[in-house]
């Protein structure tokens, strides 16, 4: 059952991730990306990490992707707006893809294969309480640093969006 679900979610995740790139319409891309997040949440649930799963949905699918969709709907992107050399664009993207793929392969191809030890496996590790305990004890400093980062990003956004003196329009 769990294995079948795993294959189903994985298949759907890979398919929708591919569709994000393949589909011509940016709106469709965003919708496929949302589907990808859903399948990832499914994976989290299979790992018994309900909290992460639902937070993934709230934050990524519920908030960030809404903003993506929002922006794309406003921009009204068209195909013919591309300027510059087509060849350099293609070559550049091929280069970037190769570099990324090389990095991933070099990382994972030589990584030791670990198998979960059923005896020492804690099925409750993904629950809220355990997560909170870990975040606020072992990872306290990174956690606080991340919150400072968010705060500075927020302040920056407010500064950018601030109305200048004498400016009438939004």
């Amino acid at each position, binding site marked *: 059952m769990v294995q079948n679900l795993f294959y189903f979610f994985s298949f759907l995740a890979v398919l929708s991730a591919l569709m994000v790139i393949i589909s011509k*319409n940016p709106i469709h891309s965003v*919708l496929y990306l949302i589907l990808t997040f859903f399948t990832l949440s499914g994976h989290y649930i299979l790992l018994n990490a309900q909290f992460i799963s*639902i937070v993934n949905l*709230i934050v990524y*699918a*519920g*908030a960030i992707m*809404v903003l993506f969709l*929002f922006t794309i709907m406003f921009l009204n992107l068209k195909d013919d707006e591309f300027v510059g050399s087509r060849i350099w664009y293609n070559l550049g993207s091929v280069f970037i893809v190769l570099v990324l793929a090389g990095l991933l392969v070099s990382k994972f191809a030589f990584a030791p294969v670990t198998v979960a030890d059923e005896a020492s496996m804690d099925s409750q590790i993904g629950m809220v309480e355990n997560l909170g305990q870990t975040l606020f004890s072992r990872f306290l400093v990174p956690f606080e640093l991340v919150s400072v980062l968010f705060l500075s990003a927020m302040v920056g956004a407010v500064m950018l969006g601030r109305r200048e003196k004498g400016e009438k329009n939004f």
Partner: protein
Amino acid sequence: MELYFFLAKAIIILVIFGITLLIATYSTYAERKVAAFIQDRIGPNRAGPWGLLQPIADAGKMFFKEDFIPAKASKWLFIAGPSLAMITACLTSCVVPFGSTLDLRFLGIENLVPIQGIDVNIGILYVFGLVSLGVYGVMIGGWASNNKFSLLGAMRAASQNISYELAMSLSIIAIIMMTGSLSINQIVDDQDAFWKWNVFRQPVGFIIFIVCAFAECNRTPFDLPECETELIGGYHTEYSSMKLGFYLFAEYINMFVSSAVISALYFGGYHFPGESLLAGMLPADALGHNLLTMIGVGVFFGKILFFIFFFMWVRWTIARFRYDQLMNLGWKSLIPLSILNILVTGAVVLAWPKIESAFAFLN
């Protein structure tokens, strides 16, 4: 008897789903009646006794109307919009505890069966997750219509939902801090006495939450996405037939779920004053337990119906906000207020043992 447990669970889920749809159906009738009564009219009274068959007549009309898809619309997304709105609305009610437990040992079910779709330990987050997904139905529908007014309505819906989701979640955090759990079940059980209801312990949080609930349901005074005077029909301008019906219906389901969540989080859910007194009077066997549970379910539905009425009452009282007023209220008032609420609650929760010991001489 795992099988019987699953069967009982399945029946409960089906009943909850049916009741959700039924209440949503009759909310459309109640909306018109309440509107009429508040405006000194009588309202629908021709279809059946007191017009009780009116929702069925409305649904029949919706079904038989021409199902129209605009020529330049994105066809699949145009269909996906109302479906998504309906799905997200229907999914939410499965984590709301409608009652405590049923004792079905005479059927051979060992465990007590909770009257709740699924009891997840992140129930309240599940609700928020689905609420935040609810905006997709509106956005996709508005964009797929290929109409400026629909798009504007969808934009408004998206920005409004994102803005008010923040304040809503922040106002809930205070409750979560007091209860120490994300499970709605535990939050409800934490309010087992009348004076422990969260509305008394968290009045500011309650006001923030109910304002945000109005905004999330796109109800007046926050119904800017479908603001008729500016946007014709907003995101559902191009919709007709049952697709339009789904949008309207989803709004009423959302209203039902919001009412259920409000009563569960702030008004003690299925607990009622005098519950322990009544529990002492009833026999301590399975029958007494089940009877008490059913009374609790009745009380909970009473609370839900009151809040549905409250939604309508407010709709026919308060005028629509202007868009900048809406954003100002959300970002400049509600969010700072809810953050302040969290800070105060956190301080009180930390200091509570000391306060209690300081006033120990009173006991």
